[in-house]
């Protein structure tokens, strides 16, 4: 057995410790050792984006990221996006409103990617959304409903921001 690497990191806002072999990937640490079943794995080769999580806010394919690399970082899975156990984020709600999933297997990674996209581009155009989503494969939906969900969130946030500005001006 190779030497174990001890690491500390934050997972969905909670401090965690783990000891992993150097070849263990983040997806396996999260799923198998820590029981985070909302992190799903499909291709296991960095191709499909199903296993996407945020590492310090950056979308990362956890199946290809060695677990020890997240030492002292903040890892967010789909479950951690809303910041509480029962709530859903506006992105998740938009996925529901737009029927932006079918089998749901790609959905955790899709939601995480969409969240990161909107953080980086608050009002993305279609091309930006498509380019960004190219990191995530969905075999069920044909992507249009996912794109619409992202556009819906962007529009909602913009409308909200305008109301807030208007209120502030009053």
């Amino acid at each position, binding site marked *: 057995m190779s030497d174990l690497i001890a690491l500390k990191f934050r997972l969905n806002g909670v401090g965690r410790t783990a000891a992993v072999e150097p070849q263990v990937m983040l997806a396996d640490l999260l799923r198998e050792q820590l029981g985070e079943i909302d992190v799903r794995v499909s*291709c296991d080769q960095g191709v499909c984006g199903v296993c996407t999580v945020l590492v310090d806010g950056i979308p990362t394919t956890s199946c290809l990221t060695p677990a020890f690399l997240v030492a002292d970082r903040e890892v967010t899975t*789909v479950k951690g996006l809303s910041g509480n156990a029962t709530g859903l984020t506006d992105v998740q709600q938009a996925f529901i409103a737009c*029927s932006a999933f079918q*089998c749901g297997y790609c959905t955790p990674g899709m939601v995480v990617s969409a969240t990161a996209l909107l953080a980086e581009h608050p009002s993305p155009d279609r091309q930006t959304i498509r380019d960004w*989503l190219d990191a*995530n494969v969905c075999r069920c939906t*044909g992507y*249009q409903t996912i*794109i619409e969900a992202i556009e819906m969130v962007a529009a909602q946030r913009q409308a909200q921001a305008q109301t807030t500005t208007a209120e502030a001006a009053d």
Partner: protein
Amino acid sequence: MPDTLRQNLKLSDTARQDARDKVSGEGPFAGDITLPGMLEARLLRSPHAHARIIAIDTSRAEAVEGVRLVATGRDLGLLKQTTYGNWVHDQPVICTDRVRFEGDVVAAVVAVDETTAFRAMELIHVSYQLLPPVMDIHEARSDAAPELFDQKHPNVPMKLGRDTRTANEPAKNVLFSYDFEDGDIDAVEAGAAHVFTDRFHFSRIGHFYMEPWICVAQQLTDRIELWSCNQDPFVLRQDLSELFGLPEGHFRVRTAYVGGGFGGKSYCKHEPLAVLLTMLANAPVRLLMTLDESMLTLSQHDGDLVLTTSVDAQGKLLSRRTEIDLNGGAYADASAQVCARAAYRSSGPYRWQAYHAHSRVIRTTTIPAGSYRGMGGTQASYASESQIDMIARRIGMDPIAFRRLNLIPPGEPFKDGDSKVDADFAEGLDRVVSDLRHVDVPTDGPWAHGKGFAIGLKDGGSFGRLGKATVKVTTDGRVLVLCGAIEIGQGATTVISGLVADVLKVPREWVRYAAIDTDVTPFDQGTHASCATTLTGNAVWRAAQKLRGEILELAAGELDCAAADLDLREWKVTGKGLSLDLKELVRKKFGRFGFELSADGFVQYPKEADAPFGAKHLYWMPHWVGVSLSVDRETGEIHINDLVTGVDAGHTLHPGGVRGQDEGGTLVALAQTLFEEITYNEEDELAVPTPLDYRVARASDLPDRYQSFILEQGMGPGPMGAKGVGEAGMLGVSAAVANAIEDATGVRLTSLPFTPEKVLAALDAAAE
């Protein structure tokens, strides 16, 4: 049912039943099941297309610390039958003497964890004697080709209806043949103005469902329990029973959410091996494949289709002869069904005076082919709708007018003895023609522009022609639906729960869809053929209505009035100026520990010898497609400018669900049309062995503009005229694109996929 209620039955505003589970990542999927002491099983697969197994040395692998056992073809003693398959049982649970495709299973390692299993697998030594591979259907039928099996297999003859013959393993390397001969075709052809023969090649793609194939099995004291991603738990239970020679009830099959299947998770796959391993290990075993391996488990059928079609001087279609050879790959799986259906469906949505179809499944040393969304209808629609367009152009008719002249109108039988067509094909055709937008594209430079249309078609309703359901309601009015429709992404749980909520007039959140478990779920023949809405939906609907009737009767007895005067809403009965709380009534009748009122629903559609398929098809599933595209004459590249597709939902129970089925299927079909393909290289090795090499559609492959529509023609057999749409999206795309390419360039492509190389080659050939 009163019209007011009908309107309520649009579930448009409601979220899917599985929404929260899926957007929050909760699941569960079968891969989330962990059992105490669970071991991991991994499979060693053949690197060769065709070889004899001379010896397998597992000793070094067995010596690895943490390895529980290594199973090979020598360890099949617990099985009563060692091969399985649909109609023809030819697939070994684990190879014994020969491997027949790159990926055939040679050994299984069971170990404490995945890493150990993989380490041990590398230490297994297999000596092979190479045999000549048989990579395509032409080779397989040649005199030089080896026989892929030494003997015939146990099999079940497929009995269909009038004018039809089928045969299992009728000739060398032929798995199955189907013949249907309707009408005096020689006489009809003799009187025709034109007879055209055209040949088409259909490619093959993988299912590429995102949840890799998985089965978790556990040996209990006197039975086996398994969690599987299989969409046919009861069929699986029966197969396991036959293979192991144990009663069906010995096996308890449980199904969680299934992460996509598209046909690839139907029927028995490697579950018998998982069961064998758990029995040998006497511990829970998880057999989890990689996505690469899932791709090796099953594929679609490639094949050749030759259509000979006659037409009169006015443009009336007269007769068609269909000859199809499909590549069945190494083992049977569901090839026979695909073969029969592809042949029968190649007549398209048109009237004929005579129609003959002959189809065969040819065995090759490639990935086994089986059920794939569209089930032969994709191959059929591609060839048929291509040729219809070619004929229209040849006889100088507008392809749309030519189609319109020959379509079967709604209400007329598809063929004598079959069900009446329950779709208005012309309405959808008009819609795609009018919705396809004019695209402003440069007319100079290398670009050639064209438009193309197609009406893809398949029937719905497979061999699983029955549905069964139970609806029960607790003392406090909360509802549980039990039925065997698997949630594989199609939205079955949403549609079915919604139906129940509307009949019992309770909020949707009050209805729970029971987990699938063969011990308690009412029997189901499998979530197939886009039938969750029509078959299971009808059974559920009946159960809910019966339950509603019984509740009202109970209340009527109490209130001393007629049930017809009462109404039910949110677990209260009202009428005659009274309101009765049902919780109190149930307690009064059944005591303070309460009760569960329940009712069953059942539907079965009869067999009919006069029907060509031995039973009328349940419904008809058209896919209307219009495409506007540009072809770069210099590079051969195709650019889709606008795409319009539509389906007939009969009556829409969940618009998001219907739309998703069409758009999702359409994008897969578009990928197959333009680039996606499973191929083998010159060395007879898989050219696309991993998801890294295998290209599927991504978001940027979506056309610039794509609009889908839903027609509600109201003639389906499901609740309120609903029908399934799950496979429609695959059907019309390839032909519409081929037709548009000819419209643009005058060149006809007949071999999928239409890659730039093929387009250029065709343009060059035409220029010579």
